[in-house]
């Protein structure tokens, strides 16, 4: 199994390191032809406007959208979640837009409002997950086809729709491997 990590901008190295600890091979994705060489893809945290712009300018947006619509497993964290959302509140920024969710950007406030918290995510285990939220978005609305996996104060911060997994926080910034393991085993391998 080989997992691609979109490497236009952002914390792609942290995702590679987490996947390496799970014994999963990775590939930095910067050109469209690389999309045929992978079994799943991660869209990392970073700046969603920057990543979206570069995906468009370097002809990755359309092929990526097609691959995801035809079933390529994808995990978007923070900026990655924004890029996967069909709707972004008050924004027409370029996006992949394959998932039936509506998100709000910078929804918890500015950097001084960024926080870390213990989060209950029954799908990935009994023990809470330490979740790091950095200028984070959250999900305002979901269609019935979307499974909600975690909430902070009633705000949806993790969800799944078939081959698509998103989190508003950054599991790649902690040593907890459970969320990446969930992506590999449940979403990519369907175990």
């Amino acid at each position: 199994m080989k997992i691609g990590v979109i490497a236009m901008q952002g914390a792609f190295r942290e995702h590679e390191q987490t996947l390496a600890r799970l014994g999963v091979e990775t590939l930095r994705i910067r050109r469209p032809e690389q999309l045929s060489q992978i079994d799943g893809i991660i869209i990392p945290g970073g700046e969603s406007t920057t990543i979206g712009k570069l995906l468009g300018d370097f002809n990755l947006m359309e092929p990526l959208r097609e691959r995801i619509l035809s079933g390529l497993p994808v995990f978007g964290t923070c900026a990655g979640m924004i890029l996967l959302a069909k709707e972004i509140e008050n924004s027409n920024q370029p996006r992949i837009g394959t998932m039936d969710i509506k998100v709000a950007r910078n929804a918890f406030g500015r950097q001084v409002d960024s926080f870390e918290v213990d989060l209950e995510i029954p799908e990935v285990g009994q023990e809470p997950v330490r979740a790091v939220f950095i200028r984070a978005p959250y999900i305002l609305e979901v269609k019935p086809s979307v499974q909600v996996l975690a909430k902070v104060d009633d705000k949806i911060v993790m969800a799944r729709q078939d081959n698509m997994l998103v989190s508003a926080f950054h599991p790649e910034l902690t040593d907890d491997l459970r969320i990446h393991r969930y992506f590999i085993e449940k979403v990519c391998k369907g175990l």
Partner: protein
Amino acid sequence: MGEKGTWVVKKGLAEMLKGGVIMDVTTPEQAKIAEEAGACAVMALERVPADIRAAGGVARMADPNVILRIMDAVTIPVMAKVRIGHFVEAQILEALGVDYIDESEVLTPADELFHIDKHAFKVPFVCGARNLGEALRRIGEGAAMIRTKGEPGTGNVVEAVRHMRQVMGEIRRIQNMPREELMTAAKEMGAPYDLVLYVHEHGRLPVVNFAAGGIATPADAALMMQLGADGIFVGSGIFKSKDPVGRAKAIVAATTYYDDPKVLAEVSKGLGEAMPGIDIKTISQTERMSERGW
């Protein structure tokens, strides 16, 4: 809700900026141009470094009104600069809600002995460094991000190259040193021992390290990335050139595709004139911004 202003959270935003370009802006209009060109953040200031050099006098924190208007104009993170040691300017910027504070040698230092105690703030700080000892002292004071000092406002990348090579070379030296030599190395560099030990064990700084000061072309940006930078700050290089929009987009693309000469050749075409630039040898020692800080 949860814990705010923790080290993980402060350092985390810098991690998210990696592989990106942070652009100096002086107006909301420039901030929008930067965001549309793909900047991952903007730095709000009163004058770009080239104009600070030209104007002379004392350079201070920007007017809060200008900073607030820039924060309203864009959705990407907004940074702002304070004078070295001026912790009240920093308190003001934190109260305004800026996302990152640059304790910067580009502004006229307010304290020539002591930097700000950055641990006392919830907002994260970026600081300049010419070598590993200076970088580790700043991190010891609480900086969650480091950048080279370079020589701002000159359009001349030579000092940024010197500082990046210096830091990366010293990291390699510390990494390969036997453990019993580390305390002497820490003493010689004037660096906290626990951070020297971290560098020895991990082969890198404990925080993100960007390149800054003198970057004027896509080739300059890619050069700094190939030398080991995590990302790029560009100041005068964009808004002092003939075509700021084209040049900003090209520098963003060059930072992502820094190891792909074909893309670099493509984005370098037809950008018009770069900023005029200054030969650093013609700047007297006392006017060199890279000599500020300790």
